[in-house]
């Protein structure tokens, strides 16, 4: 019974925790610029992250190692450090985008410019991590994230053309501006398939002391939780296609985002959007900060754990503190949150192979996983997607920058 409740909680928190500024923004841009044409990208990203999360949980449950710990142990210091540095750089940008997201949400409601909110937001996120426990953060904030179901409601209320929608499930060539199309496509992938997620997830599994008996429930949570989360992501795209595209609004200013819901529901819609953004980005902020601290602490062998008090793991706690500080400072510079978001999502896609390949090698090592290693299909599909995404990202990022976004 307790296990069933745990599964239900896992699914629900995965749904609530799925969206954040990256997925909202990229889906909104996709819907505004290309109607339903990029639904396949959202679905592909969802499937990939569901697979990776399942692998991450399985890895921790069977090997009793976190991913970061195992990468250092298996590949040695140098092959641990190089990916770490790259992922750190990209993740801090994503973190800054999320803190920016929370700040922008407050700006939408108060009218006060977002950089002013950066410090209070950073402090709030820090307070949650310093004084909270893993379950409070994981569950509490993610449950609040269920408010993003409003996007699904909005999409249904707007009544999309289901035939056209279904057509978007199949990849198709863009109707216009191909390099922009592919840029958004890889940004969508980068928003869903965030490497920090599987570092975070394996650490959580160890914190919750999973063992092999959790494999089946983990599979269920990954499939259903990520699956429904992906539907919410599609809902954002659909709403954008129905609200922004007909008005010729291309999402290039963050102030345009609330239109997704305010167009339908006026001030209430604005409030709902702001609340959704606030909660989901706050959740993502804490997750990324934790994930980066996990990577360092686990790779260097320190005490770590959100359930430990900071006095029990000072180095770990101060690491996430510093990480949050850097992210906050970046937002304070006033850098445009929308541009930062789309860029960091594309950079995430570009750096995917660096994070994923060592992870996949681990997933095939029977020393860690015994008989629970990956099947070749899982390996090949993830490998192909991440390498292709990376190549497309590397090509399209400069084109997008030059093209002026």
């Amino acid at each position, binding site marked *: 019974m307790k296990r069933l409740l745990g599964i239900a909680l896992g699914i629900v928190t995965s749904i609530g925790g799925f969206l954040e500024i990256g997925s909202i923004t990229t889906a909104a841009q996709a819907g505004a610029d290309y109607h339903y044409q990029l639904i396949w990208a959202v679905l592909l990203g969802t499937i990939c992250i569901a697979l990776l999360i399942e692998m991450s949980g399985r890895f921790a449950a069977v090997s009793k190692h976190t991913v970061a710990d195992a990468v250092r142990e298996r590949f040695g210091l*140098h*092959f641990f450090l190089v990916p770490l540095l790259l992922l750190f750089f990209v993740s801090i940008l994503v973190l800054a985008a999320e803190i920016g997201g929370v700040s922008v949400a407050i700006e939408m409601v108060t009218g006060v410019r977002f950089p002013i909110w950066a410090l209070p937001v950073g402090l709030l996120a820090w307070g949650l991590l310093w004084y909270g426990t893993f379950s409070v953060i994981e569950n509490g904030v993610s449950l609040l994230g269920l408010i993003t179901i409003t996007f699904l409601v909005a999409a249904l209320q707007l009544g999309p053309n289901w035939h056209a929608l279904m057509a978007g499930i199949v990849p198709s060539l863009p109707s216009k501006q191909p390099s922009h199309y592919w840029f958004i496509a890889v940004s969508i992938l980068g928003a869903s398939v965030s490497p920090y997620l599987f570092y975070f997830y394996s650490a959580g599994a160890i914190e919750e002391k999973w063992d092999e008996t959790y494999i089946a429930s983990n599979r269920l949570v990954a499939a259903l939780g990520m699956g429904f989360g992906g539907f919410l992501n599609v809902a954002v795209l659909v709403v954008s296609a129905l609200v922004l595209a007909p008005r010729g609004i291309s999402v290039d200013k963050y102030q345009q985002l609330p239109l997704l819901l305010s167009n339908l529901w006026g001030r209430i819609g604005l409030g709902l959007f702001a609340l959704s953004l606030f909660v989901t980005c706050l959740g993502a902020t804490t997750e990324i900060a934790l994930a980066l601290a996990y990577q360092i602490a686990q790779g260097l062998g320190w005490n770590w754990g959100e359930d430990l008090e900071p006095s029990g793991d000072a180095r770990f706690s101060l690491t996430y503190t510093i990480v949050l500080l850097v992210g906050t400072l970046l937002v304070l510079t006033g850098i445009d949150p929308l541009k930062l978001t789309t860029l960091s999502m594309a950079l995430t896609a570009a750096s995917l192979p660096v994070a994923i*390949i060592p992870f996949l*090698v681990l997933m*095939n090592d029977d020393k860690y996983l015994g008989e629970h290693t990956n099947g*070749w299909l899982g*390996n*090949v599909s993830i490998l192909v997607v991440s390498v292709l995404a990376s190549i497309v990202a590397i090509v399209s990022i400069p084109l997008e920058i030059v093209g002026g976004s």
Partner: protein
Amino acid sequence: MSASARGMRISGALDASPRELQLESLLGKRLCDQDGNSLGRIEEFVVERHGLDWAVVEVQVGPGALVARLLEISTLVPFLGVLRRSIARHRVAWHQLDLSDEEHPRLNVRHSEVERIAPRSR
């Protein structure tokens, strides 16, 4: 010996004057024979434990960490794993090693006298 080489003992260790080596600085170094031909890079140290004595009985030499990692990636894709078996690795017994120069570990026998490790079958 400099202070940093002596290091800091935690408890009850003999302060011996015999030469000490850092294993990790030997890792990845090319192992050459007397004619200067490289056998490969030092990849592993195999130890036999007899009570408290951990004696390094053998050093394994192969293509080096980067190539080894790339080969591991190849095993993710079906059929490419065959590549692994084509890479030469060698087993060097401790008495075949000359570690007097830490920067340039050498074989004190010829290339051909070193045992080749049979490729793993998968």
